[in-house]
Structure formats: structure tokens, C-alpha cells
């Protein structure tokens, strides 16, 4: 037995020698990923991480598709044709619930993009022109996402600033289980970010990246949404007067919408989210669900909206009649490119600055209001607005509807204005009138979030059980 043990000891030794490997044999690193410290080590790395944050905005449930779709289908601009592939049915019918996949998608992708921006902002790099520019852009991205999340998942600021908003997450902590901050706190954060963005950015890169005046343009819209008209006007005018952008005119209107390339001409676009020939959502792209040339084309133009466009209005050409189900109906051609370099999603345009300035000038300066709104109508071959008083105000809101149709804006106007939505007979009978009191006017906090986050669990929006 003793001999055996002795022998066994030697044998183990012999075998160990035979099979011995280097210690590094078990140390294998990912070939396509690096430690965050490495990923954010230099200015060049920071720029790459910033692009990742922009790419996050292209998610199908953010600016890739759901944000611009919701803004129209939940309102009265687009409806789901009865011949459809079943996308956004629940929004058309106003029957979505806490397990809704698009709402969860926006929530998840929104905070994922916020994390990307947060990591850029928090990168431990010394200040420099480049670093400030990149971090400034990241602040603007973060503000943009919070602005959209708070507008869809919370009652509007104009309703109750101290109502529940969305959780504010500014630092990376995967174990955090945050509750909802108030709407007011979220807007304060957005403005804080936009102020930093405005201060830190010094460059204009192209239409698909934030610039100083794109951030200011976003802030104009934020103030408009908060019903802070003086600040909204100041911000809008800052963009108009100092941004160096030129407005699209009747002459180049068709060409502007037909193009899908990122531009550096500073024509009209303050900011857009780019889809290129490689990184795009293919048949999940925004253009694909509108275009009648592909095989979805599910969402089409609501007739009352179409009726608003005079025959001379160049915008009418964006809504060509097409045959669907044997009937000729107006369809959406604002995002016509469904292959190659897909149409980008316009987020902010110079024309909207004029519309904001117009709305913010009312009622104190009606003439100025008319001038600003007619800056837009005159460039669309539309009849100038000459109304006064309440009618002028309504005409400005309607002009917003016409100018910003299918850019995800209409529903959010209904929200900030706390108005009931009357949609007409293109929608199912049960979903033709959506009063402001309807609990589905704000999206549910996704069940998935409630399941894992005990802080937010008791904070679901009223009505969702």
C-alpha cells in the first residue's frame, strides 16, 4: 500500500508534467470587446463611443420608427389601413397594455442610449475642444431621449409639473432600481443638459449630429412643451438668427424630402437620425411602413389631414394618391427611400423654429406671430394666414400639423395642449374619439420594468392595472 502511494505520487507528477500547460491557457479575452476603461481612454475613443450613442437613437422603437410613428398614429394624422401587416394595431386602436412590445422597446432602448451618453459624459478625459464638443453632443442626446420618454410615459408638464415623470439615471450602476422623478425634475435635467450642450459645443459636423444650435432648437421645443413661451421664443430666435441654417423653400422642398444623405449644407435640418446603406432597419425602417413601393405601406394619410392641403401647397405632393384595396387613398411619401441609404428620421427642422416663434408670440404680438407662421406658408405655396385672435392661434397649431405631419409631432401637441383627439371614420369605431382623460393617453411603464424594479412598481400610470 505504501509502495502504491509512493508510486501514485510519482505518477501524478509525471502526468502533470506531460500535460502541463502555460497558465495563460485559461486566460482568453473577447476578440471584439474591450474593458470600458480601454474603450474610453482617448479623445479618439470618446468620439467612437459618441457615435455609439447616436447609433442608439436609430433603434426601431426610438427614432428608427416608433417615435415618429406614435406621434401621428396615436393622433389623427395617420391610420392603419384595414389591409395591413399588423404593425402598430394596438396604437391605431388605442388598446395597448403594460406588456406592449413597442413601449418596452422604447423604454429599454431609450435608457440604453442614455447609458451610452452617460459613459461619454463621465469619461475621465481632460477638457479640450474635442472632448467638450463630444461631451456636449452627448448632453444633447441625453436631453433628447429624456424629452421623448417623459412626453410618452408621463402626463404633460402643462398638466402637473409635480406629477410622476421618468427615472433620471445619470451614472452607471447596473444594480440601481430608481423610482420616477417628477416631471419638473426631468425637465430641469433636460434644460441643464441642453445648457451644457449649448455651451460646450463649438462645431457643426453634419445634419446627423448635434450642434450648438441644434441643441438650442431642441430647447426651444422643450420650453414650448413646458408652455414657457418667452424662453421658447428666445431660443427659437437664437437658432433662426444665429444658427446659420437656411429654410427649405417651395422650389427645393421636393428635393429636400427625396434625399436620404446626411448633409453639411445646413439646409433646413437642425438634427436628424441617420440610417445609412449599411446600418439601417431594412423592412423595419420608418420608410418601409409608409412607402407603398415596399410590401407594408400599412400606415396611410387620414383624409381630414389631406384635405387641409391646398392644391398649390408643395407639401401635398408628399402625399400621393395610391391604390390600396382597390380604392385610391393619400399615402405618405415623406420618407421615400426604402433601399440603399434609407431615409433619415428628421428630428428638428428650422421651419419648426418659425412655428415655435409664431406660437410663442401669440397672443402678445399677433403680427409677429403671423409673420413667423407665414415665413413657412410662403415657402410652401400655401395661402398666407391672415386670421387674428383665437383663430390665429388655431391656424398656427394647424400649420404645425401640416408642416410637421409624419414627424412624430401631432400627438405630443395634443398632449401639451391637453386636447381631446377626434380621429374620424378611418379608425375603428371604438377608437374614433380619444379624450384627454383616456388613461392610455400616456404609455404604461412596461411590466418588465415593474417586475424587476420594486421602487417603480407602485408608480404605474393610472388606469393600467
Amino acid at each position, binding site marked *: 500500500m505504501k509502495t502504491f502511494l509512493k508510486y501514485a505520487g510519482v505518477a501524478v507528477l509525471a502526468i502533470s508534467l506531460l500535460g502541463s500547460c502555460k497558465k495563460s491557457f485559461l486566460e482568453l479575452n473577447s476578440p471584439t470587446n474591450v474593458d470600458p476603461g480601454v474603450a474610453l481612454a482617448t479623445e479618439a475613443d470618446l468620439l467612437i463611443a459618441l457615435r455609439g450613442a447616436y447609433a442608439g437613437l436609430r433603434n426601431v422603437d426610438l427614432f428608427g420608427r416608433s417615435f415618429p410613428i406614435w406621434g401621428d398614429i396615436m393622433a389623427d394624422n395617420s391610420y392603419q389601413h384595414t*389591409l395591413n401587416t399588423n404593425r402598430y394595431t394596438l396604437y391605431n386602436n388605442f388598446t395597448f397594455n403594460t406588456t406592449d412590445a413597442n413601449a418596452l422597446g422604447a423604454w429599454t432602448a431609450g435608457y440604453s442610449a*442614455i447609458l451610452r451618453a452617460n459613459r461619454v459624459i463621465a469619461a475621465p478625459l481632460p477638457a479640450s475642444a474635442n472632448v467638450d464638443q463630444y461631451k456636449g453632443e452627448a448632453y444633447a442626446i441625453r436631453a433628447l431621449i429624456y424629452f421623448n420618454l417623459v412626453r410618452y410615459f408621463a402626463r404633460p408638464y402643462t398638466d402637473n409639473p409635480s406629477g410622476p415623470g421618468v427615472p433620471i439615471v445619470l451614472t452607471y450602476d447596473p444594480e440601481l432600481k430608481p423610482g420616477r422623478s417628477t416631471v419638473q425634475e426631468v425637465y430641469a435635467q433636460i434644460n441643464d443638459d441642453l445648457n451644457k450642450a449649448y455651451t460646450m459645443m463649438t462645431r457643426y459636423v453634419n445634419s446627423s449630429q448635434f450642434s450648438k444650435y441644434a441643441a438650442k432648437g431642441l430647447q426651444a421645443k422643450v420650453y414650448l412643451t413646458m408652455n414657457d413661451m418667452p424662453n421658447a421664443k428666445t431660443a427659437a430666435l437664437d437658432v433662426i438668427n444665429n444658427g446659420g441654417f437656411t429654410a427649405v423653400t417651395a422650389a427645393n422642398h421636393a428635393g429636400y424630402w427625396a434625399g436620404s444623405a446626411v448633409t453639411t449644407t445646413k439646409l433646413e435640418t437642425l438634427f436628424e437620425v441617420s440610417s445609412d446603406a449599411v446600418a439601417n432597419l431594412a*423592412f423595419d425602417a420608418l420608410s418601409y411602413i409608409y412607402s407603398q413601393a415596399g410590401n407594408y405601406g400599412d400606415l396611410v394619410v387620414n383624409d381630414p389631414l389631406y384635405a387641409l392641403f391646398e392644391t398649390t401647397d408643395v407639401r401635398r405632393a408628399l402625399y400621393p394618391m395610391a391604390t390600396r384595396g382597390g380604392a385610391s387613398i393619400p399615402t405618405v411619401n415623406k420618407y421615400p427611400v426604402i433601399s440603399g441609404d434609407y431615409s433619415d428620421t428628421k428630428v428638428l427642422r428650422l421651419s419648426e423654429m418659425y412655428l415655435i416663434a409664431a406660437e410663442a408670440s401669440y397672443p402678445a404680438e399677433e403680427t409677429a406671430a403671423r409673420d413667423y407662421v407665414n415665413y413657412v406658408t410662403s415657402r410652401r405655396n400655401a395661402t398666407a394666414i391672415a386670421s387674428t385672435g383665437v383663430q390665429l392661434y388655431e391656424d398656427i397649431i394647424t400649420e404645425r400639423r401640416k408642416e410637421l405631419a409624419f414627424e412624430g409631432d401631432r400627438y405630443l401637441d395634443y398632449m401639451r395642449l391637453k386636447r381631446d383627439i377626434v380621429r374620424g371614420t378611418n379608425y375603428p369605431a371604438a377608437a374614433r374619439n380619444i379624450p384627454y382623460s383616456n388613461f392610455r393617453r400616456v404609455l404604461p411603464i412596461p411590466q418588465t420594468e415593474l417586475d424587476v424594479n420594486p421602487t417603480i412598481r407602485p408608480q404605474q400610470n393610472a388606469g393600467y392595472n
Partner: protein
Amino acid sequence: MRKLLVVLTAVLLLTGQLLAQRSITGKVVDEKGDPIPNASVSIKGTTSGVVTNEQGNFTLTLTPNAKTLVISSVNMGTEEVAVGSQNVINVTLKLEDRALQEVVVTGYGSQKKANVTGSIASIKAADIENRPFTSIDKGIQGMVAGLQSVAGSGQPGSSQAILIRGISSINAGTGPLWVIDGIPVNSGDASRLQTTANLLSTLNPNDVESITVLKDAASQSIYGSRAANGVIVVTTKKGKAGKTVFRFDTEVGSNSTAYKNDKYRPLNSAEYFQLTQEGMVNAGYTAAQQTTTLNGLGYNGGNFSDFSWLDAVERSGAQQQYNISAQGGNDKTTFFLSGGHFYQQGTSINSQLRRTNANVRVQHKLDEKLSFNMNVNGGFANQRAPLNGGAFGNPILSSYFLLPSRPAYNADGSYNFSNLGGLHNVIALSEIDKRFLRQSSLRGTLSGEYKILPNLKFRSSYGADYNVLEEDQYNNPTHGDGAASNGRAFAYYTRYYNWVWTNTLDFDQALNRSGDLMLNAQVGYESQKSNAYFISVQSQDFPPNFNLTMPAVGSRPTTSSATISEYSFLSQFASATLNYQNRFILSGTFRRDGSSRFGANNKYGNFGSVGLAWNIEKEAFMENVDFISQLKLRSSYGINGNANIGNYDWLTLYGYGANYNQLPGSAPSNVGDSSLTWELNKPWNVGVDVSFLKGRINLTADYYIRKSEDLLLNVPLSRTSGFSSRTRNLGAMENKGIEVTINATPVRTRDFSWVVDFNFAHNTNKITSLPGGNDIADGSFIIRQGEAYRTFFLREYAGVDPANGAPLWYTGPDHAATTGTYPGAGARATLGNALPKYFGGFTNTFSYKGLTLDIQLYYNFGNYVYDSWGSYYLGSGFGATYNKVARQLDRWTAAGQTTDIPRYVYGGNNAFQSASTFYLNQGDFVRLRNLQLGYTLPKNLISKIKLTNAVVYVRGANLFTWVKDKNLPFDPEQGTTSTSNLNVFIPKTISAGINVSF
């Protein structure tokens, strides 16, 4: 080295003891007096012995201490004869209960089954050969108690989920470790473009000699690191010395859908339009809107087409296989060669697998000490699989979604590409578009064995498996998935190279003079590395010529990616068995494993087991109990590990590829956990093996408790963190169960025999701990402390309100009230499990002269199946532009009507389509897995044409399926998640075959 020699010499002296010797001769015969060649004659307590020659004679040199000779032979009993002063010993061996003599391949070696302390089951070649199944994992369904083998798809070559003794992990792998000829191989689905594939589909089941399933700690733990889900040890065929034997097998047949339910027949046009119009009225659309919509759906003023997409998609698929082998050799060298061809068409268009393979094994004994083995098994499988699930290119989806009013062909016979309601003409696409997988596998072992001493053996084995997958996909620019990108094509290359180098020393030694106490010990060292290489190419914008399908033709490259992924293991192990008079057997294993998948301080884990067996029939008090030929009690306990997670899950990572404007972009990609380490599995087993009436009845029963601890759990995070989950070692669960296997021969006469094989397994799973005790949402399931994993968690459907036809749900699990509004999350209730409570196989084999009738049933009771796409074809108006199934016709139409299908409303009736128990069905089924009638041609007839054996047979596989729930839409086998996903239907196969040897 010198020291080693000294020790070896010492051992040699100890065991050899070259003192005075004498020889003994004798003859070994059977009960009829016929000589038994190759019988083993050895001196008890030593390893010295000889084998008998062709005449059954032997000559053995006795050692001075020799007191007893042990004589044994394959399939015969063992006799012990006391050595007196005589010089001649003649022995008669009786035909023995085979179960007692059976040798089974276990971890790193083989053992006599009677001496095994663990719970193991074996499957012999004959039970898996020539079956119409594309891989061995499919072939073993119902053959081993406690081994659940479930198909998720009828696609030829599809992956098969295997669970041994329940499901032991939530997020880490749950499949067993496959060890083929000593190599822990990469198994499972390695494809990236196909909907399903199986690395084992390149292995020809006809090349397999035996399959051993290791079910408990004592048997598994030598594979410590990866044994948590059981081990399946596959040994391929070897040659036998003697005359070269050729064998040829062929089987041809056809496949069609195994299970169909008329209630889920897609509607014809008239039925669909009637429903649709009714639905539009119910939704409040105007007459004009109704007309427009109906015409848009192909109503054409009543003059509509009626095309059955399901009939066009389903088919009777061909089934063929041809296998040839040759084996032979002499006492030094043996060989086995084989080749095979297998072809299976799925039950629907676009679905097939063609496999060609070859196998070589050569074994050579240089002398008594040194031997070599080399085997190479190569297989090439060419697979074509359609899309599944919700993809519009999925032919099965289209069969249910496409309207019968929209035919596949235009009046002139050309394909219809327009007005398909956004869906795809899958009939056309099956011809034009491509989805191929070419999977090549080479598995080989080169091993050498050196007997340093008669009782000390060194073995070194280098094994590798090399899998290459080439996948092509083409989507034409005109219609279908390629239209959005003006045509697109993919080419993916995936290569897995996995090597394992194992070195072991085996040692046998009697620990006392009488040889009553034997020790078998083994120490070993093993290193393994798997590296994968991936290339992915995609291009878009294709010319309109449909014959130009390669990415090279596309004008716009959109994906050009390549990467690698690696893992490695480093292991030291030891095992020992103490055997006292074959009565008591104590075994132990220890293994230390390191894995690259864990952080620097957590790479290593220690695993091991102890096992004990008591062969009671060998006790003196059992001597007169004649009706029991075996009574064995055994028990084992041990700890295994599971590292079956992503290769880099523990690392905190930033990834690349979040590109913007075609410039590089990066983003956080993994949370990571530097303290991540092995998931532990602690199985305890107690079992009994009883054999009555000389092996006429054999019974094996086991009871086990398996505890899984430190689960590698994807702990869900608040989405506000930017992540959805993080892998942590948290949580625990438990599987408990019993298994019974009965083999009986109720009738055995000269001409007729009836053999029954029955196995039964019952497993209950319970999640015993979760982080913070919190539930984890899991789709239609809930992961909840105290409940079983894969428990369905849904809102309960309460039927239709007879007053207005609206759907109703219960407001809570207590059924206190119902609501017409889709209730909130609080209304969800736990409702049964995806995994069965009971399952097993029941086989009857009748033989009369040359005729053999084999009837194998597989049964599965107590689980539920979820229909994940039911909302579209049975949603009372949801997905209104898609076709519906016949059951939708039972909708509510008038006040007071009692039905479970709500009023049909165009666009959907309330939220009826949302997940609820309406779409959950009971999954109980019994399936006639194999029905086979064979005839062995008489020897005197076939010997005239120089054949040694010839069998002809007819077979039906999955011929009949009984289900308990008459509302079950699709095949009851829907993977281990028991959720249907519009996959290729599982086939029933009717075939005929012949086997010839010469």
C-alpha cells in the same frame, strides 16, 4: 525519472514474485459440451490469466499463491474453481443472465455493469440503427428512463433538446455532455443562419456501437466540470478479429405530417370572407368600407379564388438511407470501415437533409504491452431549412396566414407576386430563394496504451472534433425578404475546432493475499480547447437574374465581419474503486477543473463523488434464493459543475459595431461579474437492480435528488441601467424523481419469444432560492421561488360573455370574479409546466422463428403546450387580414350562445388575442414511435447466395399520435419550452428496409 523506475521496479517485484511455478491445463465447454473459445481463465486476485483457444483449451502457469481460478466468457456465467493438486481442470460454463455480465463504457474506461456503483443506462447499436432519424439524439427518445429527448421541429437535421433527470439550470446550458470516443465534443446547434441545425446530424447512427447514459454522481463526476446535466458516452464501432464481414443496410420510405388537428384547418375563401364581413360590421365600418376592404382582400365581387396554401406547402417527403460496412482483422490488428448515405425530405417544402459519411477505425497491438487505436469519423450534411416563427418567408406561417383568395399562381401559371397582403408567396420563394447549410464534421481519436506492468496501464489520447458550417442565403430582389434591399445574399462560415488531450494511468491491485479486496485506480490530466471562427458576409442590390445568388454578385456589401470565440478547460482527476469479493464496491472520484469562462480568482472548481454498491445476491444467505439472480443496492452522492455559459460573460465589456454613418461606434455590451464561478450540481442517488428467474425479469429502480446551487443566473436588471440582465451566481433549484426500468421476457420458447421493455420517469422540479426571493419574468413563464422552472404564468381565460360575445378573464388566481377588460399583471396565475410529469417508453418485441414484430410506444403526461401564434389565426379578428382556422367558426354570434370563441370583430375583440390560458393546451400524448415487422431469411436459404444474414422489414415511425387535449393545434412535441413556433411539422415515416451480411 530514475525515481519512477525504482518505484516501477518495486511494483513489478511486488506483483510478479517470480518464484517456483507449475502449469495447469484444461478445457472450457458450454452446457452442450461445445468448446468455448476466447474464454478468460485467470487467477483470482491477480490480473494474470490466459484465454482459451478455438478448441476451448488453455494452459496457465500458476503463481505460488494461486488458490482459485476464475473462468468466464462473454454471455456466459463465471465459474470459480479451487486449485488443488490436480494439473487438469475442465470447466462447464452456463449460459448466463446477460445483464450481469454486461460491460458498459463509463467515464474514461469501461466496467462490468454489476460492479458499477452509479446509475447508468446503455443503448445498443441494434436499437438505433437504420431508424429514419437524422441524429442519434433523436433516436434515443423513450429508450432510457429519465432521459427526455424532445424535438422542437420536424426539420431534418434539427436540434433535439435532451434533459436528463429534469432541467437543472435556468440560464446555463441544460443539455448533457456528449463524449464521442473519449472526446467531449461540441454539440448542439452551431448554425447562424439556419433556423435549426444539429452538429450530431453529421454522425451516422449506424456507426455507433453503444451509447451509455451516465445519470448520477458516481458515474458522471469524473467528467466533473461539465457533468451537471448528465453525460452521454458514445462509442463507435470496432472491428473484430476473424473473417472479414461485410454488411449492407438500406431503408427507403416517405415522410408526412405526424399530427394534424382538423380544428386548425385554415379556412377556405368563402368561410374567411363571411367572417371578415361579419367582423367589419361588428367593428362599425360602413358598407362602403366593407366593400373596399373585402375587395382588397381578394373578394372580387364574389368571384374569388380558393387556394389552399397548406396543401401546397405540405408534402410527402422522401426518406432513404444506405449503409455499408466492413470489419475484420487478426489478433494484432482489427479494422472497421463504413460508409453511409442518408436523405430525408421534411414534411413541407424547402426542408431536407442529405448526409454522406465515412468511418475508419484501426486498432493495432504491437505486443502485449503496447497498442494503438485510431479512428476518424467524417460526415457531411447538406441541409435546407425554411424560416420559422413569425418570418413572412416561413412556409408554415404562410400556410395559416395567407388568404386562400390570394393564390400562389396567376391565371397564366406564373407566380403571383402582387396583392398578397404584405405576405410572401412562399411557393415561389421556395424555388427562387436559397437557404442552405453545408455542415462537415471530422471527429477523430488517436490513442496509445502502454501496459507498464500487467496491472499498470498508461493511456494517452488525443481527440479532436472539427466542424465546419457553410451557410448560404439568397433573397431575390423582386419579391419577399430581399425586396427591401433589392436582393440580398449571405454567406456565413463557421468553424469549431475542439481538441482534447487526455493522459491517464490505470492501476489494478489486490490489496490482500486472497485477492478478495481489489483496487482499481486512475489518475489523469486533461486539457481542452475549443476555438471557433466566424466569417459573415452579406451584400445587397442584386441584378434581377435569380440564378445569381452569391454575395459576390451584390453591388453593396453590407456585412463583412469575422471574429473568433474560444474557451478552454484544464483538468486533473483521479478515481478509485474498491471491490470486496464483488459484494461490496466503493468508488470515489475527484476532479479539479479550470475554465477560461471565469475570472482570475474563480477559474478552478473541485468536484467529486462517492458511490457504494452491495451485490446482495453474492451473500451466503442468498445462496438458496434461486429466483433472484441479482439483487444490487447502490447509492452515490457528488458534486458536478456547469460552466455552460457564454465564453466572456464574466467580463465587463464595451463592444464595437454600434456604427454611425459607416464610422466606428462603441457601446457598453456586458455588465460582467468578476466573481463569477461554477454553477454546482449535487446529485444524490439510491437505486436497486433486481433480476428474477434467471434474467427473465430485470428491474432497475432509482430515486434521486439533484440540487443545483450557485446558479449561473441572468439576474434581470432595471432597464433604466441600460442593460436587461447580468449573469451572477445566485439561486438554487432541485430536481427529485424516480425512474423504473423493467425488462421482461414473458414467453420464451424455442420458436417464439415476447420481450417487454418498459421505462418510466417522474421528475419534480422546484426553484428553491432566487435573489431576494423575487420573481423573474420569463415570457409566458414565471421563475418563482417554490415553483417549478418552466411554469406557465398567464392570465386565465374565463370564456365568452354569453350576453355580448366579449372575452372574459379571471381577475385573479382565486377565480373570484371575471372581467371583460384584459386584466393586469396581478391576474396571472401559475398553471402547470412545460415539462412532463411522467414520460417513458414501452416496447414489445415478438419473435416467431424468423419474424420479429417490434412495437415501441413513447408516452408523455402532465405538461402543457402554448400556441404562440394563435392570436393571429384564432384571435377573433386580430390580424384580420390573415386567414383564420376552422375553430374560429365557433365564434359567438347571438346573445345567449355558449362558446369559448368571442365575437369576431375586425381588428380584434378587446384584447382576446393577448396571452392567456386560451392558447394553452394540455400536452399529454402517446405516440407509436416505432412499429416494425421484420423477417430474417433462413440461413440455409441465404447461405446458397453466400450470405450470412439477411433481414427484410417494414417500419412505421411516429405512425400514430394520441393526444388528450382535442384543441391541441400542433404536434405535442414543441421543445422543452413546449411552445409552438410554426416549425416544420414532425414527420411520421413509413419505410421498408433490408440488412444483409456476408
